[in-house]
């Protein structure tokens, strides 16, 4: 049997000695759209950032298709949060999607036929063709999210990490983004999405991870987000290190 797409073993990540994620284990296969839930400070963003290779684990590690994250960097797509993007940057939708091919073309290589095809396929898949020549600021929030998904697609990523992508989207944009995630899933990708609205879980995702610093549950929506598990995740206080500040 081949290695699972994402394997997290005994992962601990802490800020200033306070663990945001505490000895977490999980295994996920390709072809799923997984929602990550949990109260504020449960480690949702931390988990995504660590998988993306942006934070260094204190214990344990992460394997992507059996390999270390660093070896697989180009197959992982971490979608930026809206605030971290300079929307005035001189780049069009098409130009941004082309950036996804840079790993394949290298420093000097010219765009080949297959690169061009990957770009136009990505634009088509995420319904961006009408906006291809637009500067990225002249898009709606949902179109902007889809542009970044298209770039990740052009990059040929297998694993998509999205941190609260639905925040601030109106209903139409949310629907289009949800559709885009389904498209990715149908193409056998693994999508991890942190999300706060539990009520939308079933309509957006096929499975869920419930976090509370530690892993509370993982599985189908119904199973993972059962009343008992939710009580467990939202009812217990998260260790915030308060007791420690006076002492040791």
């Amino acid at each position, binding site marked *: 049997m081949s290695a699972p797409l994402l394997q997290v073993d005994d992962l601990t990540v802490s800020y200033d000695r306070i663990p945001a994620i505490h000895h977490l284990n999980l295994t996920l296969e390709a072809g799923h759209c997984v929602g990550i839930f949990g109260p504020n400070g449960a480690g949702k963003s931390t988990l995504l950032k660590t998988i*993306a*290779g*942006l934070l260094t684990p204190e214990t344990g590690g992460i394997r992507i298709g059996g390999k270390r994250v*660093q070896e697989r*960097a*180009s197959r*992982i*797509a*971490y*979608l*930026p949060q809206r605030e*971290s*993007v*300079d929307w005035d*940057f*001189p*780049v*069009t939708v098409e*130009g*941004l999607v082309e*950036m996804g091919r*840079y*790993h394949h*073309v290298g*420093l*000097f290589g010219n765009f080949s036929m297959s690169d061009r095809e990957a770009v136009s396929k990505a634009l088509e898949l995420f319904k961006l063709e009408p906006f291809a020549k637009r*500067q990225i600021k002249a898009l709606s929030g949902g179109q902007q999210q889809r542009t970044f998904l298209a770039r990740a697609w052009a*990059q040929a990523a297998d694993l998509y990490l999205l941190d609260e992508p639905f925040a*601030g*989207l*109106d*209903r139409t944009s949310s629907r289009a983004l949800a559709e885009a995630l389904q498209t990715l899933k149908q193409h056998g990708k693994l999508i991890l999405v942190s999300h706060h609205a539990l009520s939308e879980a079933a309509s957006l995702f096929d499975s869920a991870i419930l976090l509370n610093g530690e892993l509370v549950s993982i599985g189908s929506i119904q199973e993972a987000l059962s009343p008992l598990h939710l009580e467990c995740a939202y009812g217990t206080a998260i260790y915030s290190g308060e007791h420690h500040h006076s002492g040791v």
Partner: protein
Amino acid sequence: MTHTSLISQLLEPFGYAFMQRALLSCALIGFTNGFLGTFIILRRQALLADALSHSLLPGVAVAAIFVGLSPGGLILGGLIAALLVALGGQMLARNSRLKDETAVASLYIVAFAVGVVLIRFSRVKVDLTHFLFGNILGVSDGDLWISYLTAFITLTGLAVFQRPLLLTLFDATVARASGIRVRWLETGLLALTVLGLVASLQAVGVLLSLGLLILPAATAYLLTDSFPRMLWGGAVIGLLGSVSGLFLSFFANIPSGPCIILLLALFLGTAYIFSPNYGLLISLLRKRHFHEESLERWDGHQEHDHRFPTSND
């Protein structure tokens, strides 16, 4: 005036060797700094570059004290001083809660003060005006070679790493996640900026060098939505501005440095007002909102009440 005499008058500056060297030097520095400027502007580091330019002074002063006004010594001194400020600032910011612009600003002010004090001890006379505006008409063959070398290093470095740099400039976090050595690239960019400033010190001074770094790229930024066009556009504007500014200063008999800056500022002002997409004029002339088009959009809902529910999302 006959046709030929007008031409010969226009070509007059080319007759002088000092003018030929000045033109060549201006063209090289204008093009290189214009190219580099795009990276500085998109990283929002225009003011950091300004800070670095002033931090060259103590290095220049120390060099003047120990080795006199030899170009090699001045460049080395300036380079070391600026690198100390840049790297020192980075170190302060990483190891404390000070943000990097605060750290660098504190250090460069100190550096400038140290420089002004040190200059008093120099046996040769170092003129602050010279430091700020250089002496483009006094460019020597040695200065010219330094310009060739700097232009070569800077343009090659930026051209080779253009793609990873673009990814980094656009979103450093995502670039890092995709395996690009962001810190390494950022440090390299900083080093090239310092090199550009120091190498053009003798010819155009720090202020003009800075002007050539910022103004052409800012002009290009207002005119295009394409990164490559901004890159090459900035370089070409830098080249045209500095060469024509030098010509203008020759005929109008005004100082060349400020003349080049003012001409570049004229370009920027023109783009600010007349840019087809982002200009002041177009934003005033445009319709306030798409009235007919919006009415059309709502037409489908005519049968409903006109008061649509307002949503908060």
